[in-house]
């Protein structure tokens, strides 16, 4: 693995794209596993060598860790088993799941249960509390967790952990599911008229919160003529936790404030007929208050998203899967 040095930190390995980064915030160093790469070793950014040296030997082995911090241009960590590295990988994986799990009915990637995820996150955090940047990380993770409904091992472990940290776990609140997510202006689709142009664009996941859209679906647009007017219509298939979305097509903004009879979020707006002449037919979707509309299309997006969807699907059956992933697979 290659080592590079800047004024502020020592970097090891290839830093992954944020959407495929399983991140760990260690004391004095940030680690990131690329979920699409099979490497046992994470890339690292070491910004406080003294703090990081206390535990980096658990990740890369004592020799490679020392070399990394003493000026080597590359290091070759030996593939020894390390329970602590495995535990770090586990927390990093759960952090990735929380952010990027691509639930999709189109691609048959089952949704994860956030209650199980939060419980597992708290336990995985506690398992390596000695090397994390935040010394109160376990308490912080516990305050985001709720009591588990079933009396199983995970529940018992969580209760014990909460007890040791003096945290009282609240009962879980039932999250709004797709079926009871009511939009203010819900109503049947108004589509009619003559379709003149249509197309679809991949959705930038980073512009919407986790679970807001079906990860495998594209955003579709239609330009129609009806009663002498021109209309733009946009539809998006929501994910397990829908939220308000806005669409931008060329320079037209519209809210996806209706649900059509296929359960898709949809919006419609009259447009000047001149928009038909536009060659800039890019549709972007974003959640207001979450992210601004993505200015530039990313040519790598379709490939990356397809790879992450395939990865998530495989994870539900993987032997080393987290409980969160396995349980999603049994739903």
């Amino acid at each position, binding site marked *: 693995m290659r080592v590079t040095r800047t*004024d*502020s*930190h020592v970097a090891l390995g290839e830093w992954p794209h*944020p*959407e495929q*980064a399983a*991140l760990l915030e260690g004391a004095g160093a*940030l680690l*990131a596993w690329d979920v699409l790469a099979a490497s046992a070793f994470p890339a690292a*950014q070491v*910004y*406080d*060598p*003294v*703090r990081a*040296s*206390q*535990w980096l*030997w*658990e990740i890369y082995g*004592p020799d490679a860790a*020392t070399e990394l*911090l*003493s*000026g080597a241009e590359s290091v070759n960590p030996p593939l020894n088993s390390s*329970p*602590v590295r495995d535990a770090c990988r586990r927390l990093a994986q759960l*952090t990735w799941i*929380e952010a990027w799990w691509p639930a999709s009915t189109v691609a048959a990637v089952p949704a994860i249960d956030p209650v199980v995820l939060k419980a597992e996150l708290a*336990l995985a955090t*506690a*398992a*390596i*509390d*000695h*090397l994390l*940047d*935040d*010394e109160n990380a376990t308490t*912080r993770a516990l305050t*985001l967790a709720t009591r588990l409904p079933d009396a199983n091992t995970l529940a018992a472990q969580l209760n014990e952990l909460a*007890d*040791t*940290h*003096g945290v009282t776990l609240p009962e879980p609140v039932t999250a*709004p599911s797709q079926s009871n*997510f009511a939009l203010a202006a819900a109503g049947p689709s108004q589509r009619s008229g003559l379709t003149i142009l249509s197309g679809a664009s991949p959705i930038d*996941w*980073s512009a919407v*919160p*986790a679970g807001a859209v079906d990860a495998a679906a594209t955003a579709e647009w239609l330009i129609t003529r009806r009663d002498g007017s021109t209309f733009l219509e946009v539809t998006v298939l929501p994910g397990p*936790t*829908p*939220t*308000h979305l806005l669409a931008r097509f060329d320079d037209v903004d519209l809210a996806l404030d209706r649900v059509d009879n296929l359960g898709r979020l949809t919006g419609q707006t009259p447009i000047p007929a001149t928009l038909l002449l536009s060659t800039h037919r890019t549709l972007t979707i974003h*959640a*207001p*208050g*979450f*992210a601004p509309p993505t200015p530039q299309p990313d040519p790598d997006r379709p490939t990356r998203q397809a790879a992450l969807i395939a990865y998530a699907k495989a994870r539900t059956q993987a032997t080393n899967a987290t409980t969160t992933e396995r349980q999603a697979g049994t739903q």
Partner: protein
Amino acid sequence: MVADAVGATLPRGLLIAEAWSRLDAVAPLANASGRPLARTVKLILDPLVLRPVLNPRFAAGAVDVAHAEELRDRIIAAGPVLAATAAWFLLVKKRRRRAGITEGNPQDLYFQRCFELATAHGAPDSDPASAVTADDLLAEVHVRSGPTVAGLRDYVSDPVTIRELLRLLDVAWTTVSDVPPDDGSELPDRFLATCVTNPNTALFADLITDRTGSRDGANLRLPGVAHAEGLTDREVPGPPELGAAASKNALPKPFDRSIVQRLFVPLTDTRRAELADVADLVHREITRSAGPWQLADETSRVTMTLGRTAAAGLVATPAPGAAAQLRARWEREAFVHRARRLPTEGVHADVHGVRTAYLRRLWVRLHGRELTGGTVAAIEVWDLLDGVLRSVILDQRDRLRTALERLGQCG
């Protein structure tokens, strides 16, 4: 730095982990990956077993190989006491559950006391006497001693007292200190340049004798200065009110807090037994409020000046050392935000808000330390400066998470 020490040193964390793995029956003090908990190291191994203050050879992150065996031996020799500590901790937790106590973090509250019990009595046994000992420990820790919020309210609402307190406030604020304002001392920059890896104790002592903190703090009385630092909403800070009510939420900015508001949070803490009595607390708070930085101790004031200097690097080109490290933490947060898929809209425009939130948080930490009689040592400065930014950033993440949940619910 580790770089100079190849072959001659070993990471302290590695030596501790090795020694720890040879101990029996210490699982309650360890995490699921078999390493001692962060708080086991911080509250037990460091202060009670390794004692780096008495044994400076164990103090640094890199331990000379010549002392490695001694460090391991010391931990292994403590094995039986640690096992007994673990057993006491389990028993105390059990009795705590039985007594229905939920306040405070059990590790913070009981680890050191369990070690004391283990040292004095060995392991607890099944006879009822051990349970009684554990109950005594709980009673002692959770005793409702120390000053209370109710006591504070009573004290500041007594008409006779009020007159006297207002007089004291008036005196304190009309005889505001005579320190000449700062003329641009270079000492803070010099200390900050090396405090991350190699804090200069002599330089820190110079900062104290020079009264750099007081002189810098004197500038805050000039119009607009304390306001720009986010410490007050007023153009010029004025004497605080005595106040009557307070709540943990929606506290005004530090210099705008009433005397009651300044004392409220410390009085609701589990450690309030360490505080002085109400009258004393109020009198000292009045004096403190009129001091530079509205703090009493010169080490606190110097630390505020160091924090102010270092945090300036969040919004301007940072100097190498502490300022650059703080800036790097903030910049790293942009990637962490993206990788954790947190809301990005408007977050990074708020770096000025982060800088002022930083100074407010630092002030609250230092104020809290003063109330329990703590000062700041040179070797603690960087942990404090870095820890405050971490805490501000993590709170920002919590706020973003909450905003995200609201975003989901508004559907």
